[in-house]
């Protein structure tokens, strides 16, 4: 090379990336004018590079013109320090040197930016498209639904191995600064080697070792995100994951479906009521069966008590074993149909549900009423709109069964109260987890302002 040499930073960078084969370090040269490029070929958009950088270079009259042209490009940014620079380059930035100044151009080639269908939280009305795996597309989707200057996006460089980009979004007018500071602090102090998705990060944010109820929510619906932004919540977006995390989340957020806002008031009132009845049913019904058959059959009206007792004729063990036995198989069935490929899962359900259920009653291993109860419980578990809550409820159900088996009907009542106490005693980033929201957050108490 006759004329100028590449700046020392370039050699340093290429030393860092050696011996990877997709590194390009190339000078542009024309009539004594020089420019230097450094990039990773596989993550940079070649066409764009050609259009916006290489061709203009050969059309410009002088180096100064080219430099000021580059400086005015919208995707140009400051060159960060030497620790951050490799991260940027490996994410698709092009390092340039023109005259004596350095530029960094963002020419990312993104292949995974298509918007995905909603699969986890489907609704009949409302948007059918969810988010994207690409962080910029996701932020774009959210911004396109929330046109306000106060919507703040902050990028975070996390300290894990892959340096995955993470961004937090919030409305700076509405979000609580204390909670914001807490979340930033937690994101800064993540000491985990690797995380790749929203669900995983959520797990690390929850902190304490034993958690049953989630305090953050993973969602894929843009309308839910905007709804939560308006409520002053904070959204965490992770590159490569089509889900975002919403924090802080309380119990009632898990019981809300976005569909509630799209229906006529009476209809949505009816569905909300249905949902809560489903929640109570799936928590209480199995334990109630134990309490009613083994402890206090006299509570039921005589005919019903006799029917229940009649259907249990021939069942060789006490009711709590029957319940645990059937619930266990029901949980196995749910778990299996979730993990299996779609083609097989239909068969599994039929074999498990229909054949096993019928055969078990005919073999007098369970009562027919038990089969009805188990199916009712299974159905009402699915009524809970957010999956994570229904997982938690499944665990609570087993704990309640144990307590009821030990202490009877009083045990059921007290166990259920214990469950409410546990929820009330929990907090999600300082927000009380279970608290009836008659009025706005801090409106009337002054209790929460402590």
């Amino acid at each position, binding site marked *: 090379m006759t004329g100028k040499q590449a700046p020392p930073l370039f050699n340093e960078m290429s030393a860092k990336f050696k011996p990877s084969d997709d590194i390009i370090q190339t000078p542009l040269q024309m009539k004594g004018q020089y420019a230097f490029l450094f990039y990773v070929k596989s993550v940079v958009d070649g066409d764009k590079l050609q259009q916006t950088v290489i061709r203009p270079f050969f059309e410009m009259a002088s180096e100064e013109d080219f430099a000021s042209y580059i400086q005015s490009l919208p995707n140009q940014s400051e060159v960060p320090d030497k620790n951050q620079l490799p991260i940027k380059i490996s994410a698709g930035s092009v390092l340039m040197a023109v005259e004596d100044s350095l530029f960094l151009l963002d020419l990312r080639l993104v292949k995974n930016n298509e918007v995905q269908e909603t699969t986890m939280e489907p609704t009949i009305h409302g948007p059918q498209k969810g988010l994207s795996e690409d962080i910029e597309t996701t932020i774009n989707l959210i911004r396109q639904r929330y046109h306000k200057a106060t919507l703040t996006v902050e990028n975070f460089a996390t300290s894990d191995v892959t340096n995955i980009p993470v961004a937090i979004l919030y409305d700076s007018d509405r979000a609580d600064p204390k909670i914001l500071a807490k979340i930033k602090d937690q994101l800064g102090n993540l000491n985990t080697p690797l995380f790749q998705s929203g669900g995983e990060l959520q797990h690390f944010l929850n902190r304490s070792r034993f958690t049953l109820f989630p305090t953050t929510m993973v969602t894929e619906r843009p309308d839910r995100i905007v709804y939560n932004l308006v409520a002053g919540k904070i959204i965490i977006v992770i590159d490569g994951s089509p889900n975002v995390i919403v924090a802080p989340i309380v119990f009632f957020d898990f019981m809300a479906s976005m569909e509630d806002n799209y229906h006529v008031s009476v209809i949505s009132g009816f569905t909300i009521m249905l949902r809560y009845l489903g929640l109570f049913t799936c928590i209480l019904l199995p334990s109630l069966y134990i309490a009613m058959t083994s*402890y*206090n059959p*006299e*509570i*039921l*009206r*005589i005919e*019903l008590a006799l029917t229940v007792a009649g259907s249990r004729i021939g069942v060789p063990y006490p009711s709590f074993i029957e319940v645990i036995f059937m619930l266990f198989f029901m949980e196995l069935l749910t778990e299996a149909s979730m993990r299996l490929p779609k083609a097989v899962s239909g068969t599994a359900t039929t074999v498990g549900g229909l054949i096993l259920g019928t055969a078990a009653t005919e073999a007098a291993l369970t009562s027919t009423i038990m089969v009805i109860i188990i199916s009712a419980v299974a159905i009402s578990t699915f009524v809970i709109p957010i999956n994570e809550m229904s997982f938690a409820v499944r665990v609570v159900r087993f704990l309640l069964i144990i307590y009821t088996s*030990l*202490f*009877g*009907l*009083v*045990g059921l*009542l*007290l*166990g259920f*109260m*214990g469950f*409410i*106490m*546990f929820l*009330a*005693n929990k907090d999600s980033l300082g927000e*009380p987890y*279970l*608290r*009836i929201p*008659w009025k706005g957050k801090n409106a*009337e*108490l*002054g*209790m929460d*302002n*402590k």
Partner: protein
Amino acid sequence: MNRFLIYLILINTLTNMVSITPRILIAGGNTGTVLGMAFAISTGIVLTYFLVILFSRFPGQGLPEILKAYTPKWFAVPVLLFMAAAWYVAGLFTLMIYTFIILRFLTPEMSIYTIVLTFALVVTYGVLMATRNIIYMSEVIFILVVPFIVFVQMKGYLDPSLNWDYIRIALMQVNQLPDYGAFTSSLFIVIGTANLVIFNRAFTTLKKPTLKGMAILTVAFMYILATTYLLPIGFGGFDSLENALYPWIMTSDSIRMKFGVVERIVFIFIGSFLALGVVSMIIHWHVSIHLFSSVFQLKRLKWKSYNLTLPLFIVFFWIVAMTLTKRMTVEGLYRTVEMYDDFVLPAMLILLVGSLLLAKKGASSKWRENKK
């Protein structure tokens, strides 16, 4: 008025409907229960009003903090100890009453220890909860349970076998001089505000009582007390109820749901009141344990940076509760509650108002000193 304060008061009021109180009221039936109740309501309303005003002068502070700041120590410590014991006993009564009810009506074959153990796990967790969270929890349970209670009472009032003549006879006793026992036990029902002794810590902006809030409370007190006393009489007769151990449970067992899955309404009744009883017990013992720990704070008793004073107290609480519940009889409990209502309660209330007034005086004089 703060809605959480109203829950605190009403839970205390409702819990006592099943307990010994109706029996005491009915025992005084010939000697002026009606006037006693009327006096109790007016006294309760006035006391509620003054207590809320007094506590609102010390926002976010419980009685221990107030007394320690503004009164001499020789005064503060005995007062706090006395109150802690009073609140512990109040919670203990609830525990005993419900243990006996469960033993008699739900699981006669279970041992008393097992029944108390059922309570022990949940109540221990509840007592050790943060003050603020207990308030949230009581709201949830209140809202879940009260529809059932209202349903049972409506069912009772609309029942054809309710004899209104008995109720009229009971009301005719209005010309008798008020009965002291009926007065104090009704007073215990309406004085849930006293729980502010500790719960004021959670209320950082306790507003002065509003007309609306006081009106709601007055109506609620009148309705609940009247129902507590009159509905059993309407079912059981004015004269024949005197020997009934649990008049209200008998009453609710007279009501039947013809088409319900649960035919005998008494189980719904016991269930909902049991839930409220547990909340009330948690509230009482929470107050008691914090009053105790304000006097004895064992700084050295630590395990992994966690102070063990509260767990130690709760273990004590349960040991005492277990032994006493095992020994107590229903009749003995009745006499003890009567004595508690007659002597301990008035003394406690006088002490509470007196010490608050003293603290108020101390606070204003301190404020003047600071101003100089």
